């Protein structure tokens, strides 16, 4: 074979091999590490899987935040004003977490339908609403304050 052609062939084979390895790596990494968002209404209907990483977002229900007096344990409820999902979290909550504010919790649902959160994200500035929460509220037809639109 012509040396230039041979070099090209080797190059193409190398690129093919390398990119298929990369694709395998990506699919493998993607399998366990993506999680799907569910609005509280869908969690209540049982659409969310139990024991798999998911995210749930909504407004933190007024009066639902209970902080433990001797540990970092917190429980609260997320709502889209259609349904309510209880959440427990062990750790430090973000600064802008609060009742009547939007928040997204990621974790796993247990058998009782409680979300065991490993991470809680609150909005980052006063005017910003996590897009998923906004969409979840859009679906349920309520505004941020819980009034029907």
């Amino acid at each position, binding site marked *: 074979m012509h040396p230039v052609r041979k070099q090209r062939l080797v190059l193409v084979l190398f690129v093919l091999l390398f990119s298929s390895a990369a694709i395998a790596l990506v699919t493998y990494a993607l399998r366990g*590490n993506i999680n799907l968002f569910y609005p509280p209404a869908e969690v209540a209907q049982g659409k969310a899987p139990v024991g798999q990483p998911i995210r749930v977002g909504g407004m933190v229900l007024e009066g639902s935040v209970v902080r433990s007096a001797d540990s970092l344990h917190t429980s609260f409820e997320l709502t889209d004003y259609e349904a309510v999902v209880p959440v427990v979290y062990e750790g430090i909550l973000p*600064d802008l977490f609060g009742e009547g504010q939007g928040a997204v919790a990621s974790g796993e649902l247990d058998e009782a339908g409680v979300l065991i959160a490993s991470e809680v994200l609150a909005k980052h500035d006063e005017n910003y609403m996590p897009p998923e929460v906004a969409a979840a509220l859009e679906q349920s037809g309520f505004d941020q304050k819980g009034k029907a639109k």
Partner: protein
Amino acid sequence: MIPEIGHFALIIGFSLALILATVPAWGAWRRNSRAMALAPGLAVGTMVFVSISFICLCIAFLQDDFSVKVVASNSNSLLPPIYKFSAVWGNHEGSLLLWALILSFWTAAVALFSSQLPLLMLSRVLSVMGAIGVGFLSFMLLTSNPFARLLPGTPADGNDLNPLLQDPGLIIHPPLLYMGYVGFSVAFSFAIAALLGGRLDASWARWSRPWTNVAWAFLTLGIMLGSWWAYYELGWGGWWFWDPVENASFMPWLAGTALIHSLAATEKRGLFKSWTVLLAIFAFSLSLLGTFLVRSGVLTSVHAFATDPARGLFILIFLAFVVGGSLTLYALRAPAVSSRVSFEWVSRESLILCNNVVFLVATITVLFGTLFPLIMDALGAGKYSVGPPYFNAVFVPLMALLVPFMGLGPVSRWKRDSTRRWQSELAVPTIVAVLCGLTLPLLNAQYNVWVALAVALSSWLLLGLLRDLWYRVRGAASLSVGLRRITPSYWGMFVAHLGFAACVTGVVATSQYNIEHDLKMKPGDIEVIAGYEFRFVELVPARGANFVADEARVEVTRHGEVVALLAPQKRRYLATGQIMTEADIDGGLFRDLYVAMGEPIGDDGAWAMRLHYKPMVRWMWLGAILMAFGAFTTVADKRYRRVRAVASAPASEALHGA
């Protein structure tokens, strides 16, 4: 009045950019040298007027002119003056103006420092940059005018700047990052100009190389500052979150890293020409994509601030236009510029090729992870999020794969080398590196195989570089003569690769040995982490210019000696009532001690506290600084100033060759 002057200057700047984008390009097409000669003047003129506009916006912020909408929504009379500057670019309109300003700086810099370029090439390059300027300036004028007034209805005071952005790091982070982002527009414009002219040769690579290196250095610094800011300001002690906005700046960096290496091969050996052009297009397209992702608000991100999705459409169309247009041009013209230079498989060229493949694959995997949620959402398949584990799982093996190539690269010869020479060159470094990897992690309390691997790889890199340096200087009469004979571009490579080794070591050591305790502490409580005793001494009230705070006093002792007194704060900003965590850090070359406050718990004065022990975390940022420093150094190389002699000879041919 001043905002109106600013607005007017912006319109003039836009008009000049429009002329720059059209007249010299027409001149280059019709070979009209008078039209072409207008380009440098127009470039400088655009810069002057955009600067005036920018200065006007700064004045509006400094004077607390709350009749200007962006000032009213992003500043406050209590805001310390220095942060009024970060408020200028801490919002959508202002940051776009900064983008346009930096683009006009780069354009003017190309106009002023490229007298050795043939006029034909220069006018094409400046026209392309002018066209990019037109895109951004029209975007501002049509959708996001920074000088829009609130008349009537001027508020008495402003909304204040988001407290997270009230930080010295954030004053220089965006400008540096944009210097990098926008700097790739120079490489892009050179590539497009070369495609238009149909002439791609070593001198083309030599022209665009210093610009690309400088842009890459700025981007490196910008990303590094962003990571550092996240570390001390977000209050969770993390330094990289694989957040879409971070990825937005990281993708151009990855593509840019591939580009600066492939440019080296193009300059030295005339290889990979069309590939280099494609990388230049990629790097800048990814910069634009980054701007789109950040500015359009399509992402869920810890960085996402209130944005207007309607504006996203404009950038998306602009992006499609730039990427589509340049790729079409590439498809039409690239076959004409392909190289016919051969090289052996065992050579520096093939190692650079490996570098490029690794970086490109890394770019694509990050791009995929970043866009995956957007694609799934657009398809209606659900709202997914791709977390850090995905990125770590694909990125870490890729970088580990990179280091062996990096070790071989600098010691190999162009065109043809032999594996036997590699063996003899690197046998000693390999043995020493393995020994380092086996022994050095023993200095820490527990042995960790990943740290061992990272130490072995980085020390292999370091020792290979040192051995190569030794070969270069040993023939000289004395060490200092030998060292002086080494070119700035070699030093640049040396320092940058060293920085990469430091970065890898820092990242792996801090990820593996990091200890984090979140716990409840009341005054008097002691918590021991890695031999350091953290004692919560007391809680005191504190006050700043525009906030009140609870301050925890934490004393850290080790073996009975006081190591540090830390004073993290929980602040409440007066203008918005926003609560913010201010961590306190005792930094050091080998370890950082980090304390942040959570929230009060119970009634006995206890607080949730976050205590961190982070070994070698600073190596990562020091490494990034070294990389940037290395890239700046290469520009000092003499051959970039000697180009006139080389360039003038083929200039006449260029006039006909297109």
